[in-house]
């Protein structure tokens, strides 16, 4: 029997054994703590343990499971909340109470609950790996499609009748070409660190619509894309992720709370349970999975939580769903890598982070994408990762390396947050590489002018940031009238358009066509004011007439379901400007 030799925090060593393989899941000690083999040499085998090792003694047994750290995939994942190694927290609460104790053994998915299964194949059919063979309604909004495991294919030799089954019951048998029989169940396992296979990657062409104006209009992300939200503390990373999780048009949300606050996870739980999904009319939780590894839970499980989350996402992607993953925060994950690397006494690279940090980050972000799954369905995974740079300094290794592997960068700005301008995404520092790929969608589905309006709005902001350099030195009074106007209109763009109130019933989610109409009204205002200024009317007169305030407040004054009021607004603005002329 193999036994514990050395213990140093979450790192446990076993001597003189050849029994284990890399990445194998093992049970450590009498309490059967869950661990993973992360290093093997001729003398020592190194295990990282996903639970607290307090009380562990040398000489306690270490037992291999014979398989890599895997996620259990099957119905019952949705509307659930798991820890970093996919243990359901509600079940853990029943076993160990309000505080999580070590070695608690709970099953990932409910093994008793019967699902209403419809079999979609018959005996004699040939099934390829990853094809759908049965369905069952998992929640009122998501139909669970049971997939043949990606490493199995063959002829169906047994199929159960439609009916009620739990995740352990045999519902089909497949005979593969070499004659082996494989039993199929509602649930299957997949190693979390290996991407699930797919047929091919497809080009991204559809935006992930979030209802947040600065994102949808100015810095859009595509379905299957990757984005990073870096920001110092208090800049609203978590708030932005909550907004996206609530409103984005993905079918399923995987929310990974990685090394963050416990109260935040409770908030997500409470809020999502109470919130009605605008698309389906059901509770938002019905299409959400939460993975909570709060900052005081064991650090090794924090490292695993990211992989667990993406594996769950890939499983649903393979059914043909569009998934959005919120990872809050990838910096905590990187720090978990650093902590374990330090315990292994590996040679550090930048700021103590291990040299493999960039490759781990890229492996993670590459698991996003818009794909054709083995089941022939199209599905996608969009990854939105929060980054918490140390000292809000974007030059630190995690931010810099993340920047290389994502195509959308929403930089949060401390000064905007201080001024309570939310979302505090800085329009000058942020970018999206998806604009070109998505322009066709906006062109076809919203308005022909969408992209050109977007550019004009961006130009106003750009112009303002140049002018502000001057204003900072000599004040705004000395600027010529047309430049003063730019500053006024840019303020309308910033406050009336980019700033969005998550607590306002209409403003929290704004459909694309309203976003377009808002841009239209701002540009109309700019246009009419420009004419007025050209005719010799000073900007102060325009300000006095209240037109800027009027357009700024349109986000509150015009409800989402009354777009016709924009015409009224535009006319009012024109009238107001005209009436100045007459004086």
């Amino acid at each position, binding site marked *: 029997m193999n036994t514990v030799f*050395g213990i140093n925090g979450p790192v446990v060593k076993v001597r003189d054994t050849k029994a284990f393989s890399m990445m194998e899941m093992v049970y450590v000690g009498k309490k059967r703590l869950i661990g993973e083999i992360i290093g093997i040499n001729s003398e020592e085998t190194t295990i990282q343990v996903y639970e607290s090792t307090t009380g562990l003694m040398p000489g306690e047994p270490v037992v291999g499971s014979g398989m890599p750290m895997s996620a259990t995939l099957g119905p019952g994942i949705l509307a659930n909340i798991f820890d970093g190694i996919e243990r359901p927290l509600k079940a853990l609460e029943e076993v160990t109470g309000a505080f999580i*104790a070590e070695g608690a053994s709970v099953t990932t998915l409910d093994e008793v609950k019967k699902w209403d299964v419809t079999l979609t194949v018959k005996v004699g059919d040939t099934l390829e790996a990853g094809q759908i063979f049965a369905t069952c309604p998992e929640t009122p909004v998501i139909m669970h499609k049971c997939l043949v495991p990606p490493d199995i294919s063959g002829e169906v030799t047994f199929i159960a009748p439609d009916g009620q089954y739990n995740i352990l019951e045999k519902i089909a048998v497949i005979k593969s070409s070499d004659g082996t029989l494989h039993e199929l169940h509602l649930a299957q396992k997949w190693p979390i660190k290996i991407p699930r296979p797919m047929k091919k990657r497809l080009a991204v062409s559809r935006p992930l619509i979030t209802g947040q104006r600065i994102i949808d209009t100015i810095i859009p992300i595509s379905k299957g894309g990757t984005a990073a939200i870096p920001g110092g503390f208090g800049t609203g990373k978590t708030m932005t992720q909550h907004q996206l999780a609530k409103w984005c048009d993905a079918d399923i949300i995987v929310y990974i709370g990685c090394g963050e606050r*416990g109260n935040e996870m409770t908030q997500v739980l409470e809020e999502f349970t109470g919130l009605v999904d605008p698309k389906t009319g059901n509770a938002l939780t019905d299409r959400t999975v939460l993975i909570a590894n709060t900052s005081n839970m064991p650090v090794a499980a924090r490292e695993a939580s990211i992989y667990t989350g993406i594996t769950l996402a890939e499983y649903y992607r393979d059914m043909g769903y569009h998934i959005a993953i919120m990872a809050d925060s990838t910096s905590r994950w990187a720090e978990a890598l650093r902590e374990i690397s330090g315990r292994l006494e590996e040679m550090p690279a930048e700021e103590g982070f291990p040299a493999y940090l960039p490759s781990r980050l890229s492996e993670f972000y590459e698991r996003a994408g818009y794909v054709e799954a083995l089941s022939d369905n199209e599905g996608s995974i969009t990854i939105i990762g929060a980054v918490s740079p*140390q000292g809000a300094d974007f030059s630190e290794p995690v931010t810099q390396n993340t920047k290389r592997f994502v195509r959308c960068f929403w930089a949060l700005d401390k000064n905007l947050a201080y001024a309570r301008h939310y979302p505090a995404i800085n329009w000058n520092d942020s970018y999206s590489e998806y604009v070109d790929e998505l322009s066709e969608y906006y062109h076809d589905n919203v308005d022909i002018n969408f992209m050109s309006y977007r550019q004009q709005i961006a130009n106003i902001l750009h112009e303002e940031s140049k002018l502000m350099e001057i204003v900072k030195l000599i004040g705004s009074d000395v600027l010529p009238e047309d430049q003063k106007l730019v500053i006024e209109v840019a303020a309308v763009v910033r406050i009336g358009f980019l700033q969005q109130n998550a607590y306002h019933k209409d403003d929290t989610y704004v459909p694309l066509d309203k976003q377009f109409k808002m841009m239209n009204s701002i540009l109309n205002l700019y246009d009419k004011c420009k004419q007025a200024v050209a005719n010799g009317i000073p900007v102060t007169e325009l*300000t006095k007439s209240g037109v800027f305030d009027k357009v700024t407040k349109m986000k509150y004054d015009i409800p989402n379901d009354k777009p016709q009021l924009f015409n009224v607004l535009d006319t009012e603005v024109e009238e107001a400007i005209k009436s100045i002329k007459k004086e």
Partner: protein
Amino acid sequence: MANSYVAYVGLKEINGPLVVLDNVSNAFYDEMVEIKLENGSSRMGRIVEIQGRRVVLQVFEGTKGLSLENTRTRFLGKPMEMPLSEDLLGRVFSGAGKPIDGLGDIFAESSADVNGKPLNPVSREYPRNYIRTGISAIDALMTLIRGQKLPIFSGSGLSHNKLAVQIVRQAQIADESGEDFAIVFAAMGVKNDVAEYFKKSFEETGVLSRVVMFLNLSNDPIIERILTPRCALAVAEYLAFEKNMHILVILTDMTSYAEAVREFSSSKGEIPGRKGFPGYLYSDLASIYERAGIINTAKGSVTQIPILTMPNDDITHPVPDLTGYITEGQIVLDRTLDQTGVYPSISVLPSLSRLMKDGIGEGFTRDDHADVSNQLFAAYAKVQDARALAQVIGEDELSDTDKSYMKFGALFEKHFVAQRPDENRTIEETLDLGWALLSTMPKTLLDRVSSDVLDKHYDPEKAALLK
């Protein structure tokens, strides 16, 4: 445990606060040990690493006076535990949880591992009840919520202690009965005067009998400092979750704590991260701060106010930085304000309470709370721009708008931020004062509030009274 009767004579190695023993059997990770010196004194320690029969111990009181031969080490068969009982109230302990007030040992009702266990997120209750502190800047702009962890970021010489005492004195922590609250005070590496100041203030307020104090002063052993907040929080959790009390925990100074962690880490030969702090400082701090909250099986709550001094007033220093990422907001003190005589010198813009949004408004404070606080923040941010510009072009050259911001800024600091250390303002007073200050500006500058709210509260007559 068999081990508790076996004493190992001598040590193999001594390195800073760490000692190494060889040929140890049946020791477990995190186990407590007692080391007896030849002169009869004893020290406590903890196992921090095991390699087969070689064991590394951390000695809390330091290794001064230890030699390789003059010791007997006994393994106690349990992790570091804190004895618990309601009789802890009113007592004073050392940083490692030993009574130092001369009133004898604690008759423990139970005991708990000082490291605690992670709270299951599904067992948490989301904090919603606000605690009125009577301090305008806090109540209106960074509201403290029961079950929150809200640190004070300060600098040496600033009035953080005075502010903490005022919060303790005025905060309505208890329910109406007034009996179910207690304060747990942990001093880590603070000067004796500071500890005395707190003690005296508790006495004057008449709460001393409801305070549990843990004192690790600046000349006490550094390893003990690592245990101090953990002992304090074990007590806080016990009183809150088993005795259903509302607990306010004050931890000061977290920077000294983090420096103790750094010293310990470097003596273990660990790879340093930023500014020499170990890579796990975030997890380590989180294991302290995350022990605030409310659970669904008990009526009590743990609210934390950690105090930390920012070295060189640098908010990007690893300690304030990592703290800010874990805690639910921060109250930042500002030296310039302090120098101009403003008490409390709260720097409004970088201060924040993350839990505020769900604990204010109708049913909690007042329906217009969110509006007034947003508008105050936005307007005060503009004040900073105007001031920066005034420094370049002079105040006379400013536009009318900027001039009105300048005026608002001065009044805001004088009337809203500043208040007497014994001044206890109601939430109505605070919010009305906010509107009066906003009303000093033209209506068009108040762009964060909807027109009807503005019509209801905009009142230039009141504003004219502010001088």
